[in-house]
């Protein structure tokens, strides 16, 4: 027979025990990984690894490219472990200015050149490009499907006051959108123009749900295509080319590691990995390597 009067005391002890076990478990889990890491490749000499912080953009990370190129880099350079911090281009450059990252992979060429000119970065090199496209609902209320001039498409959207969703986050994509508006001589504002201040994926979701148009990089669109009710309306305008560059941060904390990554990503080996990325899944590459 259980003594019922003892039960609350027992429960309290059980709770205390549970909390202690939880704590021990989480500490062990955290400590365990560090201890286990070198055991993964028995036989090979244990290499002292240093962390390389790569600041990049959410659109690049969401495309899944890093899942391909970072393991390939770490295999070629086992002494480095890459940590990707994915933020907007504006924040990535700011992180670089504060030397909180060692190397940047971003896509806002004029800002990148300014960054290097101001002495924050050592050198900017082309890595690859993809292109921006204008996507919208199948019904195409602005009648821009098949248009190859991005400016004309934007004019049609603005004149008809068709819903347009803007990243509004100072990202490379947002900057490109603003430069197309500027080229078209339009100051976008009004009820039809939604600036949501979020990442590419969020923006595509928003456009899909609200049957609006948006400017997106092709990679993110292709990787999410199955979940969106959006079709490509405009593509192929040279204004919409999206060039990625790599920059090593001046006096970076892990300068050698940052330099090694930058040198590797423009090497023929890495360029080959980039060229093949996405072909199996989407039937076309998401990025075109163009390092010189």
């Amino acid at each position, binding site marked *: 027979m259980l003594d019922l009067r003892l039960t*609350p*005391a027992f429960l309290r002890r059980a*709770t205390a025990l549970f909390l202690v076990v939880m704590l021990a478990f989480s500490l062990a*889990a955290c400590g365990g990984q560090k201890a286990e890491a070198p055991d993964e490749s028995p036989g090979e000499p244990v290499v002292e690894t240093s962390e390389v912080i790569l600041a990049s953009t959410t659109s690049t990370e969401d495309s899944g490219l890093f899942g391909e190129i970072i393991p390939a880099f770490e295999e070629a350079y086992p002494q480095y472990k890459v*940590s990707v911090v*994915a*933020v907007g281009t504006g924040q990535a450059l700011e992180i670089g200015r*504060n030397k*909180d990252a060692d190397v940047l992979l971003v896509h806002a060429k004029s800002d990148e050149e300014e960054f290097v000119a101001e002495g924050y970065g050592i050198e900017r090199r082309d890595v690859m490009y993809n292109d921006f496209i204008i996507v919208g609902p199948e019904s195409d209320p602005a009648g821009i499907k098949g248009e190859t001039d991005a400016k004309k498409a934007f004019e049609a959207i603005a004149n008809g006051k068709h819903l347009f969703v803007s990243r509004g986050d100072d990202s490379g994509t947002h900057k490109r959108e603003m430069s197309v508006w500027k080229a078209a001589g339009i100051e976008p504002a009004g009820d039809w123009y939604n600036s949501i201040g979020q990442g590419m994926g969020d923006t595509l979701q928003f456009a899909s749900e609200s049957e609006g148009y948006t400017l997106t990089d092709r990679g993110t669109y292709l990787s999410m295509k199955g979940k969106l009710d959006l079709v490509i309306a405009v593509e192929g305008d040279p204004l919409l080319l999206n060039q990625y560059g790599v920059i090593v941060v001046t006096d970076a904390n892990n300068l050698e590691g940052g330099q090694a990554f930058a040198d590797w990503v423009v090497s023929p080996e890495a360029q080959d990995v980039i060229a093949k990325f996405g072909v199996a899944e989407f039937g076309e590459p998401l990025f075109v390597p163009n390092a010189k």
Partner: protein
Amino acid sequence: MSVLVEAVVTSVRLVLQGSEEFWNVIAVTFEVAIISTIVGVLLGTPMGFLMGATRFRGRRTMIALTNTGMAIPPVVIGLLVMMMLSRKGPLGFLGMLYTVNAMSVAQTFISTPMIAGLTAAAVASIPYKLRLQARSLGASPWQEALLVIKEARLGVVAAVAAGFGAVVRGVGAVMMVGGNIEGKTRVLTTAIVQESRKGEFGTSLAYGIILMTVTFGLNGLITWYQHSSERLGRV
């Protein structure tokens, strides 16, 4: 509806055949939450006791500041901690930005005011006469303090649970100072943000279900503890 089914299936699949990455996310989530709760208790309970049970100059200011601290958006705390820990910031020499420790520090700034404020309220509700009685029986100030905390323990436990809840569900601060680095600083909430951004609502919701289940289990135990204490008190 299909998203909900996918989420439940995905959450079960993640737990049963969870990858190393998945368990790492879980481990980091609870490492940060537990450390910041423990430090929050160590700092917040004495602060709460002072505010709730004693009188001193600046007490009201301290209470006002604590209540403000409970209302500061986590992302603002994240931004401030990020600026402190940045290599250009005053604590940059520590090289701590984008680490799990940086996340624990930021979350401690969230848990401490929460625990302090709620502890103060719990302690203040203990009748003053009880303390007078203890004093008349020859209790030292330490014994008196211990008695007050002991009498207010249900409220104090609730304060700790609230502190834990605030840090385990937080996303703004850990995103800013942790950077959501895969295999390193990714936690359940930042993984949820990322998966939703990619349109992977099923996976995203699955992470949410796991987070809710674990938190529910913990809070269930705490409620059980409170309930059993109440019953014990009545006997």
